[in-house]
């Protein structure tokens, strides 16, 4: 077949340009570390990369939420722990005060300590979290939940709301307990924790100890310990969920990397192959273009 000189030259040049374009592409892949440079390289793969990226980011956000929940629950846990310790001391005082060997003067002293404990209990019940929100106020976290009129009447100003956060795709965890259930409404008890302490103090002041105060303290300790156990269970659940989230993220990242990331070994060998191809094309171009009958015409 005849070949026109111009066409022969153009085709060889075009072949070199094509090789260069391929090298350029491989180079881009190597420099970005990405197999998929634009969605056109792998339309369905790039969609998967997008949705996996979203799942990874969302799961990382769940971890962030879980950390915030842990921080809040830790504050609640230590507050409840102090409250239980405080009630233990009140119970000791109640036992002591009910002892027949005590007299009016010593009971007055007990009453003074119980009053201090009651004040501390009020302080604990009005604890704030790191954001300055009251822990035990339900949803009304910007209003002081517990107040006293100074005459033995205690009021809960919060509501029964319980805040939850999302720590997994289908998992929400409560990060608070309403003060109503912790301090006010003691199942089987005779009123709030505050009124029980107030009664104990008043009985001691009037030198008329009442053994029911000991049971009162027991009931209150039981309720607060129960709430504290629930908080501990939630903290454990968060840990488990965090582990699950971590391994999910790892799986998603592996899947994403398989789709999107470059296999360096094969890319480098491909680059070598392409470079060899280009060199061959360049050398043959120079050799072939040098061939002309005109070289021999004198």
């Amino acid at each position, binding site marked *: 077949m005849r070949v026109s000189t111009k066409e022969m030259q153009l085709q060889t040049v075009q072949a070199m340009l094509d090789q260069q374009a391929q090298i350029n592409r491989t180079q881009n892949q190597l420099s970005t570390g990405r197999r998929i440079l*634009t969605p056109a390289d792998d339309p369905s793969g*790039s969609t998967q990369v997008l949705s996996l990226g979203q799942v990874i980011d*969302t799961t990382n956000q769940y971890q962030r939420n879980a950390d915030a929940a842990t921080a809040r629950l830790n504050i609640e846990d230590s507050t409840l722990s102090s409250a239980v310790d405080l009630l233990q001391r009140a119970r000791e005082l109640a036992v002591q005060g009910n002892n027949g060997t005590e007299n009016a003067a010593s009971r007055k002293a007990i009453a003074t300590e119980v009053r201090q404990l009651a004040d501390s209990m009020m302080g604990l019940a009005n604890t704030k979290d790191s954001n300055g929100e009251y822990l035990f106020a339900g949803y009304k*976290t910007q209003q002081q939940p517990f107040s006293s009129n100074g005459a033995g009447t205690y009021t809960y100003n919060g509501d029964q709301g319980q805040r939850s956060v999302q720590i997994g795709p289908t998992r929400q965890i409560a990060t608070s307990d309403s003060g109503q259930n912790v301090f006010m409404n003691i199942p089987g008890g005779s009123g709030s924790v505050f009124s029980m302490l107030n009664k104990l103090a008043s009985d001691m002041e009037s030198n008329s100890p009442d053994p029911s105060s000991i049971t009162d303290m027991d009931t209150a300790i039981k309720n607060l310990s129960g709430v504290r156990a629930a908080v501990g269970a939630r903290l454990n659940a968060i840990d488990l969920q965090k582990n699950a989230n971590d391994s999910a993220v790892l799986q998603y990242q592996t899947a994403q990397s398989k789709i999107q990331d470059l296999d360096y070994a094969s890319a480098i060998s491909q680059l070598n192959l392409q470079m060899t191809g280009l060199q061959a094309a360049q050398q043959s171009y120079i050799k072939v273009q040098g061939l*002309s009958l005109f070289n021999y015409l004198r």
Partner: protein
Amino acid sequence: MSDLLGTGVSGLLAMQQALATTSHNISNVNTDGYTRQRVELGAQPPQFNGGLYTGSGVQVESIQRVYNQFLTDQVRTATSLESQHQATHDLAVQVDNMLADPQSGLTPAMQKFFNAVQDLASSPTSSAARQVVLSQAQTLTSRFNDMFSQLDGLRSGVNTNIQSMVKEVNTLAQSIANVNQSIVNSPRGANGQLPNDLLDQRDQLINQLSQYASIRTMSQSDGTVNVFIGNGQSLVVGTKALSLSTVTDAYDPTRQQVAYVDASGNSIDISNQITGGKLGGTLDFRDNVLDPAINGLGRVAIGLEQTVNAQHKLGQDLNGNPGGDFFSIGAPQLLPNSANTGNASISAAVSDASALTTSNYVLQLNGGTYTLTRLSDGAVTNLSAQGFPGSPVQVDGVTLTLNSGAMANGDKFLLRPTHTGAQSIATAIQNTSEIAAAAPIVTGAGASNTGSASVSAGTVNSLDPNLQQPVTITFNNPPTSFNVSGPGTGSPTNVPYTSGGNIAYNGWTIQINGTPAAGDQFTVTANTDGTGDNRNALLLAGIQNQTSLDGGTSTLGDAYGSMVAGVGTRTKQAELAQSAQQSLLTQATSARDSVSGVNLDEEAANLVRYQQGYQAAAHAISVASTLFDSLLSAVGG
């Protein structure tokens, strides 16, 4: 003797012609569209002398183009298709590149917005968390706006491209007509031969024209060629050129279309008849890559706006007020055809984001029947059958309402439900306290309850006027049923109790779980001062994973992903088609050039051949001269 001289001279002259043609070929080795020429030599008629026919030398019979019409036509067809796919690909790559980096598309902005809402759920009273939600919402809406601007910039680019390409087509058509004129004016050679180089020039112009659109040609007996474009519209007739022009779309004045200027000077839109070439490729890009991408992005914006707003309105903001619109967005576009004669004022509104498609629609009145045609697949909905225009109709998530006036028969409107979504989306709330993170109701158990039953936090389903009215549920004795009291509930009595069953009044739903005691009370009341409530923020954050589009099968992220995949697929298709056409074009060009192209080695050999012929003829003259000298010296003694 004189015949020997004459024969020798004929050889000299013929070889000179042949050398000149060879040299012409060599000179044009790099001329685009040049067809090599060949000298056809023939023996001159013999002389009859003394009963003998004596040869009298050589003559040049013609100088022919070595040409094959079929191969030339093949190159032209391949050129049109290659240019078309090249143009589509070059433009699609721009959209593809825009979406290429996963870090710069829509996804990161969307992710950051929903993450901010999650952070708000962790600390609903924090003004910092609220500020981040607001800022990320603004970043997200600007991202939509920016991406729309980029795509819209490509749309303007397409308009400019179409205008300049139409000018090129007109220039080429005029040039072809001029060459036709030159050919008509040229004197015919032997056998009616036309001037070779003008034919080459015309073929080359026709080939250039085929880069802009598919064309057909027809040779005329006077040597001219007629050129047709589109559906057979004449672009060149003999020595006269007609022209194309650009007109604005009948619906959308920002859209340039290709028009044909007919003999009486009317411009007729022939965009959908143009195939092949850069014009065909550019129009194809606009119809099949750009518009779907703009609509796809718009649909994600509308989906976001609709779902977030719906949930936000069920919430309560930091000031205790019901949530307002979180995002705002423009209504679907309904563009009247410029030829409409009626005075109908019709409005379109998105009523169901999950039913939205990325297609555009044509609303028309024909013979008393209102129809809506979905342009992506041609599906026709009979609106008259659904009561339009007497009552509003909903088709594919869009509600059409005739506000006033009436459509005249033949009137058309172009409905673009999603086109401007990404352009018009904006963050509606201005103040961080307007973010409705809380729910408007709160549930509670009576302080003197003795049973072990508990009440759920409750969900809000609709904005009932009695939503926040206090409602009390009191258990009867035995506690297997309860009475409800409160405005809006109708105060039913003896409602049977099932643990965990839904109890729904006034737009809210709650569940009571466990074993209540007789006389136990549960309440639903307005959420006063509930600034620490994050229930609505949790629901807003959940929208990210909610399948709110495509009839409840796609999340917002999925819908964006399918738009990206759509662009990627079209780009890939254009790339593959372009490279396939490129190799077909190379083959066609090789085939043509194997016949018509100049090969320098061949010309070098011809040079040697004709040079030798010339030298030999010169030698024959020299022999004649020697013979003559011999004769003279013999005579002169």
